[in-house]
C-alpha cells in the first residue's frame, strides 16, 4: 500500500479532536454524578481535554 505515513498522524489528530468534541457534549450534571462536591477540578471533561491536548502535541511532534 502506498499511503503516506504522515496521513496516520493527521488521522490520529482528527480522531482526538473528535473525542474532545464528544466529551464536551456530555452535560455537566452527568459528569458530577455521585461526586462528593462540585469543585471545578472534579470535572473530568477538563481531564479528558488535557489528555487530548497532550496527544495532539505528541502526534504533531513525532511526525
Amino acid at each position, binding site marked *: 500500500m*502506498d499511503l503516506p505515513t504522515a496521513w496516520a498522524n493527521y488521522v490520529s489528530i482528527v480522531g482526538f479532536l473528535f473525542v474532545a468534541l464528544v466529551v464536551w457534549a456530555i452535560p455537566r450534571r452527568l459528569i458530577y454524578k*455521585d461526586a462528593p462536591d462540585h469543585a471545578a477540578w472534579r470535572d473530568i471533561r477538563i481531564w479528558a481535554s*488535557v*489528555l487530548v491536548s497532550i496527544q495532539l502535541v505528541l502526534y504533531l511532534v513525532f511526525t
Partner: protein
Amino acid sequence: MPVSFGAPLHPLDLAIIVGYLAIIIFVGIRMSGRVKTAHDFFLAGRSLGFWIIGLSIIGTNIGADSYIGASGNAYLVGIAQANFEWIGAIPAMIMAALVFIPLYWKAGVYSIPEYLGLRYNQAVRVTAALITCVVAVFAIAVALWAIAITLETYLGWPTWVGILVTGTVVGAYSVAGGLAAVAFTDSLQVSIMFIGGLVIVWLGISETDGFDNFAATLTHENPNHLQAYLPADHESFPWPGVILGLGVVLSPAYWCAGQAILQRSLGAKTQWDASAGMMFAALAKTFVPLLVVFPGMLALVMHADIEFPDQAMAWVIKNVLPPGISGLMFIAIIAALQSSIDSGINSTSLMITRDIRHVLLKNVDKSKDLIVGRYLTLVLLLAAMATAPLISKMGGIYEFVQTMLSLFQGPMLALLLLGAFTRRATATAGLWTLITGVMLATIVLTLGVNMLYVAFASFIYSLIALWTISGFTQPEIHPDYDKLTYVPWWRQQQELV
C-alpha cells in the same frame, strides 16, 4: 541469553529490595482486617478512591511484556512502540470512563461476564468467563516465570526459588487482603515504577549529552525512530493496521471489557471515583513510554552490546544506573510483574466464584463466596507456580493462547457494543456471531494476514452479523434494558428533568 549482572549485589540495592518486600507484606496484612465479606474481598467493599484506582489500573496494565518486550520493540522500531500507550489506549480509556463504567455501575455487576449474562444469557456469561480465566492463568504463569528469570539474572537465584518467594509474597497479601490489598500495593508499585523510569530518563539524557544530541544520534542511524507511525507496508506495525486494528478494536476490547482492568473501577467509592480513576490512569498512561520505550531507544543510542533487543532494558539498568537506583529499578520491574499477577488471580478468582460457580452449580451457597474466593486465589497461585517452570518448555503455547484470545476480541467487542448501545442484539445472534466471527478470524489469520487487520475484519463482520441475525431472532429473556443499555446524554437529561 539474558544479560548477566555477575557482580554481587550492592548493600544499598539489597536494603531497598528488602524494604520494598517488607512494606508490601505489611500493607497486605493491614488490609486483611477490612475483609469481612465477598463484597469486601472482590470489590474492596466499594471503598477505593480515584487515585488508587488509576494507579492500580496502570499497575495491572504494565506487565511481563511491557518492561522487557516493549523496550526491546522500541530498540527495533523506536517511538512507534508508544502507540500502544497513546492511540492504542487513550481514546478507549476515555470511552471506558465516560460510557462503559457508568453503564456497569448502573447495572450493579461484579464483573464484565456478569454484565454479558444479564444482557444476553448465562451461556454467554460462562463462555466469556471461561475464555478469560484460561488466558489469565497462562498470563500469571508467564509473569511468574519472567520474575524468576529476572531474579536469576540479577541475584543469581535459582528459578524455583524466585517462583517460590514471589508466589509467597503475592499470595500473602492477595489471599489475605483481596482487591483492596491488591489496589494499594499496585499503587505503591506504580509509584516505584515511575520514580525508577524517570531516573533512567534523567541519567540517560545526561549520559548522551542532552536531548538534542540523543535525538540527533538516534535519527542519524535510524531515521524512522522518532516517527510515531511506520510505513503502511511495514511487516509488524503498518500504520493502517495500528489505527484500525489496535485503535478501533483491540484497545477498546481491552479497556472497556477487560475484567482485571475494570474490577478496581467496580470497587470505587462512587461512580465519579470509578470514572475519574480511569481518566487518571489515562493521564499516567500517557507517560508510560518514558518507562518502557525510552530505555530501548537509549540502549540503541549508547550502542548497547546486546545479542537480542529484549536485553535492552537489562543493559540500561546495568550500565546507566548507579547502586541504589539500579536496585530501585529492579524493584520496579518486579513490581510491574507482581501487580499483574495479583490483579490476575483476584479477577480470575472472582469470575470462577461467581460467573462460573454460581451459574453451573445448582443451589450454590452464596454466603461461602468469601472462603471459596480465598481458596481459589491460593489454588490459582499454586497452579501458576506449578505451570511457570513449564513456560520455557512450552515455547509457542502462550503465544498461541494470546493469539486465540485476540481472535475473540473483535467478536466480543461487537457483542459488547451492540449489547450496550442497542436493544436489538439477541442472545442467539450473539452466540452465532461469536462462533462465526472467531472462525472467520482464524481463516483470515491462516492466510498470513497481519493480526491487526484480522482483528478489524472480524470486528466489522461481527457487527454486521449480529445486527442482521438479531433481526430474525427473539431474545430468550427480556433484559432490563433501562439498566443494561446505554441511554444517550440527551435522553438522560430529559429523564432527570
